[in-house]
């Protein structure tokens, strides 16, 4: 008998838009889900589901050589990732056969097929039964690919047009009995508009975000962006850690829109570890998809993701994802509803302070001159918050290199909650 460690007693399994999976960690439609070989390895590693790399009509797409580039941090950590790949470059027949085989071998996992065909009814009508025949659990409509495909009237070209979204979704609901997840492009101004369109078309869920139009970096010697194909480049799709804040806002926008509040959301964008996933779930996601983090580190990361999430849930007393899904939505509101009477003030823990002076210069140069630098006779420096001046902007806390050295301390107040609407300083106040 092999020794086994104790695991937290929580249930990570989900049912998302009618699709069951042993855990909420799915691989997004992309190279990690390109073919049976990858998907098998992903399932072996423990991923709860995959969205198969987007299928299209034959002849299959053809990719260029030199495909990815990155926005690096100083120590070569990948902050953001960019690609100019198209949808699958393998034939429809091979993909369908592999999907069928993999699904048979992994009945408990979620297997969703991503689709992108021309925006005509015939095309959708033709492909949908073929997909359904594979035994896949659902379909995802790739209405978001921002590079290459829109030039051919597909991908983001559809996703940026609410009428087309609604139309295509409806065709899918008409010609297939599978759950339909509409994958949204972030390359729009108001994410609620395409989400509402998907809902009108009958979508069972939305997933977001697809990648964001980007140029990550330039080769300054040759004056050309990366990735460089010969002597040229083109904009690509941006993803990875850097896009997470954008994706989370879009998820929250849909979750708190009364029209789409009930629409299941699959969160995608920059998810690299369990905490990212927990955050998406708290903002209303019922499942999450991962691409870049897996591409950079391999499928094994799902172990840490599951373990971290389960332990955190156990600590908080959540036995299943649904117990905290959407819990942060009601606390996400419009600026005008924030409490004008709330006041928080920076506090420096002098025992933790290493005297680097970063808080001082940040506040002094660019904020409210609320940190005093005191130097005693021995040359020891001490930084103190001038509480009367502090507006509670958090800048010092953000620039401080020491964890928990600066904390923002909410100030007790005897004043009641007051929104900007009620604030006498608001010249456009709605008076009752």
């Amino acid at each position, binding site marked *: 008998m092999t020794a086994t460690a104790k695991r937290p007693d929580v249930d990570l399994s989900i049912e998302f838009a009618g699709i069951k999976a042993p855990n909420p960690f799915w691989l997004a439609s992309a190279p990690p889900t390109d073919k049976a070989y990858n998907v098998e390895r992903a399932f072996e590693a423990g991923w709860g589901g995959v969205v198969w790399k987007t299928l299209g009509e034959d002849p299959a797409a053809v990719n260029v050589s030199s495909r990815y580039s990155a926005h690096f941090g100083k120590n070569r950590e990948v902050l953001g990732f960019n690609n100019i790949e198209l949808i699958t470059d393998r034939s429809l027949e091979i993909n369908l056969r592999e999907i069928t085989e993999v699904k048979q071998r992994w009945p408990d996992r979620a297997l969703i097929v991503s689709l992108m065909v021309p925006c005509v009814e015939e095309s959708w009508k033709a492909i949908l039964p073929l997909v359904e025949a594979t035994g896949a659990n659902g379909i995802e409509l790739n209405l978001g690919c921002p590079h290459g495909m829109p030039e051919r009237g597909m991908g983001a070209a559809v996703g940026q047009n609410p009428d087309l979204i609604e139309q295509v979704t409806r065709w899918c609901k008409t010609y297939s009995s599978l759950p339909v997840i509409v994958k949204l492009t972030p390359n729009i101004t108001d994410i609620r508009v395409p989400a509402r369109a998907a809902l009108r078309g009958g979508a069972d869920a939305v997933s977001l975000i697809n990648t964001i139009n980007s140029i990550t970096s330039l080769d300054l010697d040759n004056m050309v962006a990366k990735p460089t194909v010969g002597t040229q480049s083109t904009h690509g799709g941006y993803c990875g850690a850097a896009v997470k804040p954008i994706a989370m806002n879009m998820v929250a926008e849909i979750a708190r829109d009364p029209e789409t509040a009930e629409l299941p959301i699959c969160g995608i964008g920059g998810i690299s570890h369990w905490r990212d996933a927990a955050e998406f779930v708290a903002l209303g996601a019922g499942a999450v998809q991962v691409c870049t983090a897996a591409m950079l580190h391999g499928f094994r990361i799902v172990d840490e993701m599951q373990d971290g999430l389960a332990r955190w849930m156990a600590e908080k007393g959540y036995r299943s994802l649904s117990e905290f899904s959407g819990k942060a939505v009601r606390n996400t509101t419009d600026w005008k509803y924030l409490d004008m009477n709330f006041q928080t003030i920076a506090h420096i823990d002098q025992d933790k302070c*290493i005297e680097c002076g970063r808080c001082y210069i940040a506040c002094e140069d660019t904020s409210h001159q609320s940190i005093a630098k005191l130097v005693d006779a021995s040359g020891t420096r001490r930084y103190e918050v001038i509480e009367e001046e502090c507006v509670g902007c958090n800048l010092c806390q953000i620039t401080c290199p020491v964890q928990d050295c600066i904390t923002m301390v909410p100030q007790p107040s005897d004043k009641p909650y007051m929104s900007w609407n009620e604030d006498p300083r608001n010249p456009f106040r709605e008076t009752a």
Partner: protein
Amino acid sequence: MTDALSHLPRAGDGAALKAGFTDLHPPLTQRQAIIESQRCLYCYDAPCIEACPSDIDIPRFIREISEDNINGAAQTILEQNILGGSCARVCPTEILCEQSCVRNHDAECQPVLIGLLQRHAIDHMHFDGHPFHRAADTGKHIAVVGAGPAGLSCGHRLAMHGHRVTILEAEAKPGGLNEYGIAKYKLVDDYAQREIAFLLKIGGIEIRHGQRLGDNLTLDALQRDYDAVFLGLGLAASRQLGLIGENAPGLMPATEYIKTLRQASDLGSLPLARRCVVIGAGNTAIDMAMQMVRLGADEVTLVYRRDAEAMSATGHEQAIAKANGVRIVTWAQPKQVLIGDDGRVSGMRFARTETRDGTLVATGETLDIPADAVFKAIGQAFADDGLSDDRASRIARDGGKIHIDDSFRTSLAGVYAGGDCVVPGQDLTVQAVQHGKLAAQAIHQDIMAQQEVA
């Protein structure tokens, strides 16, 4: 120079010994430098800058390294310290910049390796020509006596201001202790000379060797021929033990042995004492002991009259010495040179010491340590003969060293001094560089002010 040891056997296979005299701290690789540069927090009013005797803007140069701007980093260093390359190698950073790094805080892991990053920047700079301009010629000509770190730094800064500089140096090579005194494993191969060649590229500086003030050179003549004089004479004399037998074969100043060692083309030809004693507690004593171990001595004992804490060698250096097999004996002061029948040194007798009411006293006990050679490293002193001519002897002194004011002026108008030969600051290379630089500023201001008046 090592005549006192000519009776001893030779060190042996020179090629094999070479390995012991390579870099004590190997340079960072490109990747290590980038990772290390990321550790710098880019402090504001950074304490490390305050702790650097030459005022290098450390957060700035480290940020430049992290931004892949090596020339920018090097220039930031060289602007304040033209010998930044040798300082990066010889500075006791553990009591200077790195000691003040905020990342020494309990909650952090270790200071940023400022010295090694500085070395990285200087080692990898690649300027097209010299990185500093010489201002338009002022028509002024300054004499600098001594081509040590103080004199070289002063000369370079004067050249930047457009003055012509003649450096008068007693020895055959420039560099002062960088060439003749620093431990060989700190400043390896011909680094000192390469660095000086780089420094001289600014132009307008001439070095004349075999020129010794107090011997074939007088201050009178210098003041007559030049618009100002800077003295960077260092501390050429070794302190004496004051014991009978001090001149017996087998006993000599450590600095002289090091000088020979640094110049030796074949380390194997150096005389080697199997058992040796080093008397002293400073860096010179440690350097000497370490170098004897590396040359192959069997037993090296360093003896100091007080406890380890009182030693001026840093804890870091003591630890390295111990790790290299040097035995450190404290609370023992030299009492008698033990001389064998052959008239040569056979060991040292020490008086055991202790402190009573704060003063050091002998306990009455003695300790004999047998040795084939004894090296004294009890400090350097100003060599009076440098200031022996009529005019020079009028220069006010401060406990042997040259007295200066805040602007590095000596008591004789038009004569300035800096480096080890003056009182302020520690006797360190970086301090000498700083003195030279500031003295050059002072000289420049003074003579330009005179010109305006005239």
